[in-house]
């Protein structure tokens, strides 16, 4: 992972507090994310006046109103192109997109994949509560198949998008997953996202207490989380479990869940996590891992160095400026075919 920010604290959490009421429901996962973001920002070394939060529409998208930065609460699904326009105008800004599973996977799906394809250097915090919160409980494109919601009285019949899988389908350079109830994990992941050059997609498994309460409980439940999550760290073997004795290894070109100590498996047999692996196959496997066969992957699953759209763009601009003889409008107006009339 490239570090493009010096970790100098030039702002404090206080700088980002706004003071007004935070209007999410008590118990909404949003509160913890907000607090973590405020903790992370001072550590990124970004000037507080250079931070922009852009959002679409949804519960999640109220985020910019709760943090003291430049903020834009835009249209449902359109945070991504708005952020693209901001970055293509001023690459120095640190742009954060806060969005929901409906906002970015339903109406905003196209902008989501195009932003990722272009690899614009922004950070997407995707509040995946697997439901339309603000409109009160209709299913979203990430709602698990079969769920009964306000618009699926007989259970949904649609396959659920996996944000990580879609990110890879669009050639995403960074994907991470975290949960709202684990501030430490969130902090690590948000920081890595901020440091990544390119589009960072962070899926936050977020609890909507009102309309999809406990939808993530098989993953995040206190009793199961250690066995049902695997936190991935660069250069470390893929170990997880309450007893830290479970792991992932490759056998016959397939990934398998194994127990250390059983069948002769040792830690050395496990896959060592490489978020920069040029062969995407493992990342592809990791973003798709599901219960019950596998634990769900957490942390930075993928972080690939690649050209950033706005850098390439401004390189072209600089190059063109240098090469041209046409330096201003008057030059342009008089360039090429000009006819003189003597009247």
């Amino acid at each position, binding site marked *: 992972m490239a570090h493009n920010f010096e970790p100098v604290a030039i702002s404090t959490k206080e700088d980002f507090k706004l003071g007004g009421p935070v209007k999410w429901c008590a118990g909404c996962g949003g509160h913890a994310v907000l607090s973590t973001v405020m903790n992370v920002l001072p550590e990124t070394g970004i000037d507080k006046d250079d931070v922009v939060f852009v959002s679409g529409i949804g519960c999640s998208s109220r985020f910019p109103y709760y943090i003291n930065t430049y903020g834009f609460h835009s249209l449902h699904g359109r945070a991504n192109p708005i952020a693209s326009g901001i970055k293509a105008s001023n690459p120095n800004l640190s742009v954060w997109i806060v969005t929901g599973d409906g906002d970015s996977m339903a109406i905003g799906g196209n902008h989501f994949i195009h932003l990722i394809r272009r690899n614009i250097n922004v950070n997407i915090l995707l509040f995946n509560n697997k439901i339309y919160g603000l409109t009160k409980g209709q299913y979203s494109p990430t709602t698990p198949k079969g769920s009964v919601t306000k618009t699926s009285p007989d259970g949904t019949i649609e396959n659920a998008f996996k944000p990580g899988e879609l990110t890879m389908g669009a050639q995403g350079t960074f994907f991470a997953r975290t949960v709202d109830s684990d501030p430490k994990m969130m902090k690590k992941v948000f920081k890595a996202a901020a440091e990544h050059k390119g589009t960072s997609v962070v899926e936050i498994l977020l609890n909507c207490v009102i309309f999809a309460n406990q939808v993530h409980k098989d993953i995040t439940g206190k009793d199961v989380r250690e066995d049902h999550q695997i936190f991935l760290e660069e250069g470390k073997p893929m170990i997880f479990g309450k007893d830290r004795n479970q792991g992932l290894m490759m056998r016959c070109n397939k990934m398998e869940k194994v127990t250390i100590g059983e069948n002769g498996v040792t830690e050395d047999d496990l896959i060592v996590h490489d978020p920069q692996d040029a062969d995407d196959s493992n990342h592809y496997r990791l973003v798709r891992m599901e219960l019950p066969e596998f634990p769900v992957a957490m942390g930075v699953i993928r972080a690939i160095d690649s050209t950033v759209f706005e850098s390439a763009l401004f390189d072209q601009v600089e190059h063109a400026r240098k090469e041209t003889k*046409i330096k201003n409008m008057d030059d342009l107006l008089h360039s090429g075919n000009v006819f003189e*009339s003597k*009247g």
Partner: protein
Amino acid sequence: MAKNHRVIELDEVVVKFAGDSGDGMQLTGNQFSDTSAFIGNDLSTFPDYPSEIRAPQGTVAGVSGFQVHIGHKEVSTPGDQADVLVAMNPAALKANMKWLKDGATVIIDIDNFDNKHYKKAGYTEDPLHDHSLEGYNVVKAPISMLSRDVALQQGLDNKGAEKTRNQFVAGLLYWLFNRDLKIGEDFLKEKFKTKPALVKANIAVLHEGYNYAETIEALSTTFHVDPVKGKKGLFRNMTGNQATAWGLLAAAEKAGLGLFLGSYPITPATEILQEITKRKHLGAIAFQAEDEIAGITSAIGASFAGKLACTSTSGPGLALKGEAIGLAVMTELPLVIVNVQRGGPSTGLPTKTEQSDLMQALYGRSGESPVIVIASSSPANCFDFAFQAAKLSLEHMTPVILLSDSYLANGSELWPIPEMKNMPDIVPPLVADNDEDYEPYKRDPGRLNRYWAIPGQPGLRHRIGGLEKADVTGEVSHDPKNHEVMVKLREAKVQKVADFIPEQEVIGPESADLLVVGWGGTYGAIVSAVNDLIEEGKSVALAQFNYINPLPRNTAEIFSHYKKILVCELNLGQFASYLRSKHPQFEYLQYNKIQGLPLFISELKVKCNEVLESIK
């Protein structure tokens, strides 16, 4: 080359080039236009092509045309009817017969006038022998054969040789209009800069055409069009789309801002995007978005970030942008939305012209969401109105919709090059860093604009968005009274623009029997018709509107001075309907045409005379 033939001096002449998409008629048309401009003629051009990329060869649907009107006097349209027609095949002839002046010269490529081609064109009889061309001066030239021969001799292969026939046509025309071949040669040298073999061959064919014309009898009469009088200085031949793009570039320079265009290709607006992609050397950023919505929303992002932000599209694309325009209205960010109108509804007639997006521009959004609407009225003044759109948008902090149309976009005319120092200043309401009095929705009492604080500026952090804003503070507000205040403020801000735009001008007498009213791209045709009528002693005047919302302050005052008002437009009466809603005290007669074609001078005159008759 000495000439021994009759030369007729003409004030103006209309030449139409027509052939298959592959015949190179657009190129010859441009070459002829440039040559005319070079010698100092005024001119106006209009290309006209099918919506398929290469429609089937030899069919009427596949005919691609280019019309150019040159003049010793000022010309303001490409002309209703042609004095000279070049028809490369029977389909080209068939498609254009109805646009020929009596006695016109018709140059045909006789090599393509055979039974096979007649059938393809849908002729049942041979048009060269069914008397339908009687009264015209028909020149039957073996264009294909002769040009191919010459080109092959010059070393081109068969495929390359086929493509030179347009230069044979050019040669013919140079002779016919007594033009210096040198200009044509230079054009080719520039065009094929990197391909000397092509230059050589094409020049040879050009000469061949010229010589051929000199030889044959049919062209014993040639024409001469003197340089236009009064027009002095430096000129360019500009299409509307290019002029629009340059107007935006000029405004960015004047405002001291970067230009950002977020756009998605769509006929007939694409060239604006294409032009801006070429202007990175001026710091302009063109963002080719994944769709129209991303086009406009990326521009809104850019506007938030302090750019002169624009988006360009045509009717169906404008429909897609409606929701986002509403966001720009609510956030009161500057944004120029260029809409190049085409034939609708839906995909409609995508390569044809129409003025049917006026209502959409005015009202195509949810809620009360007023924007400034202005319209260009000639290819060249697309520059001025694009500049003005940007100026109003920046200074009044509001989206502006600029309406152009297919006719302006693709048409061209000679344009006196302005000096940037003479263009008006543009002063966006920026905020000083750390201004402690800054509030996102505090307003300038004069214009009612809010102020523009840019992300990255120290001490001005704030949040905007699509929810209703509290007056002054810009916080989210659900307060009923505040909503009413804000709705009215947004409307008032736009209406106040009337204080900052010129009064409506009238061409012709200040009061008369008839006021012809037009708006936007029909200017050329209407002004020609009205001037003709005035010359004929009729009591007529013209008010062509560029400012639609708000209307100029003196609109009603003007209307009150005429007995009848005739609103002419290329739709079912949208401007007339709008005028009725704004100034219901007047009666508005209508002349409407919805054929994907521009207005013709002749039909306008007929209609005006009808109305004038009715007054007596």
